[in-house]
């Protein structure tokens, strides 16, 4: 709780124009004019967007990982998001046309920590969880790191891996649950081999909680640091509501830690992934 005056110190709230909205497989790639917000966005940060318009019954913002931030461009700063039209809020967002304005708060949360010296890194993404990894890959590559990437999804079309994003990676492995592309199976099955073959020293991951848990387990087995970007239901996104917590080890205790402020990027080894332990402790 110390250093909290620094909380989200570059977050602002703006009305951002939709600059582009393109369907890419099952996702929407969207670009927003965010002016000076772009300059303070780091890989792993997210934004929180109001959905539903003026008379909406949806009262809470939706969080989206920043796929890419461009602090200068013809229209000033912009950010790009990859949005899966899942439920009411994201479907509304995907239906916004170029020229319309949405209310965005950001950048929020922690960003991926980058090794001070070059290192062999593995980036693991599930579904739209790959979004923040491409900007990270660029940063890592510029630092001289080796970057291997593995992306998985239930089926081929759900792997988000745009051409330009792949430029920064040394290798890209794909896995699908249904075998429609790449390796047939879960993403976690592909990781041990990649760790060994590429002498991985740091793992970064983003995707569904089940996948993050599996990756964490492997990282602990190999004793490799693992930074994961988690996704918990968030009501406020700015640290005031305490809904977005994950259970973190704190001596022998469980500490429920806000993923919007102390996350979304967190140390995978510290999170208690086993739900039963948490339920037994908190709801005996």
């Amino acid at each position, binding site marked *: 709780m110390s250093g909290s005056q620094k909380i989200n110190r570059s977050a602002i709230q703006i009305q951002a124009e939709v600059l582009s909205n393109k369907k890419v497989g099952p996702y929407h790639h969207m670009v927003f004019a965010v002016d000076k917000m772009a300059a303070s966005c780091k890989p792993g940060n997210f934004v929180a967007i109001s959905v539903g318009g003026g008379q909406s019954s949806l009262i809470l913002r939706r969080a989206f990982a920043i796929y890419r931030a461009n602090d200068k461009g013809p229209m000033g700063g912009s950010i790009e998001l990859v949005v899966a039209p899942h439920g009411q809020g994201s479907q509304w967002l995907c239906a916004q046309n170029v020229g319309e304005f949405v209310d965005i708060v950001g950048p929020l949360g922690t960003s991926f920590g980058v090794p001070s010296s070059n290192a062999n890194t593995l980036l693991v993404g599930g579904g739209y969880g790959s979004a923040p990894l491409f900007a990270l890959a660029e940063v890592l590559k510029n630092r001289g790191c080796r970057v291997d990437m593995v992306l998985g999804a239930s089926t081929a079309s759900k792997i988000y891996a745009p051409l330009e994003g792949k430029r920064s990676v040394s290798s890209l492995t794909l896995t699908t649950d249904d075998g429609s592309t790449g390796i047939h199976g879960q993403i976690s099955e592909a990781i041990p081999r990649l760790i060994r073959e590429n002498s991985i020293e740091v793992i970064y991951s983003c995707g569904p909680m089940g996948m993050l848990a599996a990756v964490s387990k492997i990282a602990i087995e190999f004793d490799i640091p693992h930074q994961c970007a988690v996704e918990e239901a968030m*009501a406020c996104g700015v640290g005031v509501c305490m809904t977005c917590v994950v259970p973190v080890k704190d001596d022998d205790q469980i500490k429920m830690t806000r993923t919007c402020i102390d996350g979304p990027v967190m140390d995978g080894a510290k999170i208690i992934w086993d739900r039963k332990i948490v339920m037994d402790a908190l709801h005996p």
Partner: protein
Amino acid sequence: MSSLDFSTKIGSRRFSNPIFTASGCASSGQELSQFFPISEIGAVVTKSIMTKPRTGRATPRMAETPSGMLNSIGLQGPGIDAFLENDIPWLLANSAKVIVSIAGETVDEYGVLARKLRAVSGVSAVEVNISCPNVENRGQVFACHPESAVAVIESVRRNIGGELPIVAKLSPDVTNIVEIAQSVINVGVDGLALINTLLGMVIDTNTMKPKLAGKTGGLSGPAIRPVAVRAIYQVHQAFPQTPIVGMGGVSNGRDAFEMVLAGASAVSVGTATFGNPSAAMQIKDELSNLLLEKGFNDFRDAIGFAHRGV
């Protein structure tokens, strides 16, 4: 342009304006200070604090509902000692007016909390949360029965000394909220906070189980505003002298004005902050404009105005 006396009073304390944060919806103020100067709202009401550190409930802790949300935090917090050491100094250093919300599992715990607060200077009032629905046992909601409500308030009164105004926060989930209000007014509260969340539940139709780990949660947001306005109106009607901090779904100046007309001396902004981190500041500005438009020069003339005339 005519000018507005926007100040309000609870017990002996004056606040520069009547817009407060709602307990549990602004943490201890620091996070929101990124979005507006925390000293410009009437008061920060802190998240209810307990005697010991508390983990709270498992996740999911929230579910969005039509024009509302359920939360089931379970009073997670660092405990009163860490709170007094870390949070209060920051708030006072940032010139915020502070109302400390306290919660206990037993009557004695409220007494302990009051005693600890007594020693702290710079606090403007204590809000006694006897109405949190996120407890394992509904029997623990002291505000459900006059006897238990009174026991808590008396314990706080005894321990806090005569100084600090005491605000009792009541639950709408009762058969007769006027009766509960009456009971705590009888033992000398300086104000009432109306309303805490309504007990609710969402079932996830995919998993076919309750969506929240704690099963039930507290319903807040615009959905409950008519219930809050009704509660404020009823209680102000019965006890026009008792200041009420109104809350429940206030998202804009019009909503705040509605609560004031019903009888609120101050208005807390809770869930609206989640949708809009600057909500409290914007509501303050909108309310002040509305009051002037309606010809009020003194905020206090508007309190309970809906009860007057025909």
